[in-house]
């Protein structure tokens, strides 16, 4: 049973026809051309498909697109619309990612986290990051980049 859903995607209102069991991730990537969220584990554990839903990071691979009708979705495409953010610049400076597959999810998760907690402690950064798996870096460069981007007084 196909149905039309309408939602806000990075400040644009979009409408799209979806099947009941189509995942938000697949609709974003294959119907709407939003390629920043990636499918990693496909079961909500690795965080690489993270998007912001009404400002909160969620796993788009375990959300049905039909659930999003009337809601607000933000992806990296929206967040960096006016150029890369301070956090992203810090990731670049610290060479924080190697393959980059987790980068979008990490950036989404940290974008939410830093809006709530702009000057986090290292332990808080690590806890907030614990649902985003990176298989390249051992996390140190990622945590360093976040810590650097959030130093108090900057």
């Amino acid at each position, binding site marked *: 049973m196909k149905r039309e859903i309408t939602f806000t995607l990075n400040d644009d209102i979009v409408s799209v026809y979806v099947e009941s069991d189509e995942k938000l991730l697949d609709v974003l990537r294959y119907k709407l051309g939003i390629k920043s969220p990636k499918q990693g584990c496909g079961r909500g554990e690795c965080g690489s498909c993270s998007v912001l839903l009404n400002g909160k990071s969620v796993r788009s691979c375990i959300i*049905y697109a039909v659930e999003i009708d009337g809601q607000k979705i933000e992806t990296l495409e929206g967040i960096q619309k006016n150029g890369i953010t301070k956090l992203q610049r810090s990731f670049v400076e610290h060479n924080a990612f190697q393959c980059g597959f987790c980068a979008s999810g990490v950036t989404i998760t940290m974008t939410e986290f830093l809006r709530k907690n702009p000057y986090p402690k290292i332990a808080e950064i690590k806890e907030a990051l614990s649902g985003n798996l990176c298989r390249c870096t051992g996390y140190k460069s990622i945590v360093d980049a976040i810590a650097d981007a959030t130093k108090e007084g900057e």
Partner: protein
Amino acid sequence: MSSFDYFSPKTLEEAVQLYNEHSASARLLLGGTDLVNMINDEMIKTNAVIDLKNIAYLKQLELKDNHLYIGADVTFTELIESDIIREKFPVIWESSRKVASMGIRNRATIVGNICSSVPSADSAPALLIRETIVRVMSVNGKREIDIADFFIGPRKNALKENEIVINLKIPVLNKSFGGSYVKMGRYKGEDLAQVGVATLVTEDLQYRIAYCAVSPKPIRIKKAEQLLNGREFSVEFLKDVDTEIMNAISPIGDIRASKSYREKMSSVLLEKSLIASYSRLKGNKPEYGKELL
């Protein structure tokens, strides 16, 4: 072709009606962090998914008539960010922070967590020691289930086929207390509990002890509590308490821990939890949310 039809009722009445019509094959959807994976893995087959997130009543999180009400659509993040939970239900607050990771807590609900009824449910020990009432509704009306009777076994609970959990009702404790939830996983980040224990000590020295992940269902162990009731806490009592704990639990060995490791850790974590709870009762550290392992 979709494998199921999707419904998003706007009222409870509509929801129970729909669920009744489709009950044998329908599934209720809140955060979906368990359900969607189970459908993906074909662990369950369903031809009707009923999304409860558009029912405003289920977003309720409020104190009323000396009880806290947590609606079925309240997420762990909403609990963590609530001042009521942090101040009056600190063990629920502490254990909510231990559930999975932020991206899951933003979506997963505490009611969904207990409805999944897995033995390791992080929210269960805290709900057990606060003597939570599970309020359910079906076309036949409403009823209340004591959380101690709610869990039956792995992924099994006392809900009838057409019943929907609408909220949790938790009595406010009108005396001072200290409590804690201690969870052990294989590593500090996101993991299911190998052992989880919640304890509570009230100013009149009544103790409450509940576990997850060490028996087929989350359990409260009153026989162990009775050995402590009325006494100022001392670790010397723990030897006797341990005997009752070992009688009550029956852990399995699995990929996360062996049976004997879970047994030993059940004692170790109980000690840590009781020390923290008693210290908090007396107004001392560790503050809630502090790592207790």
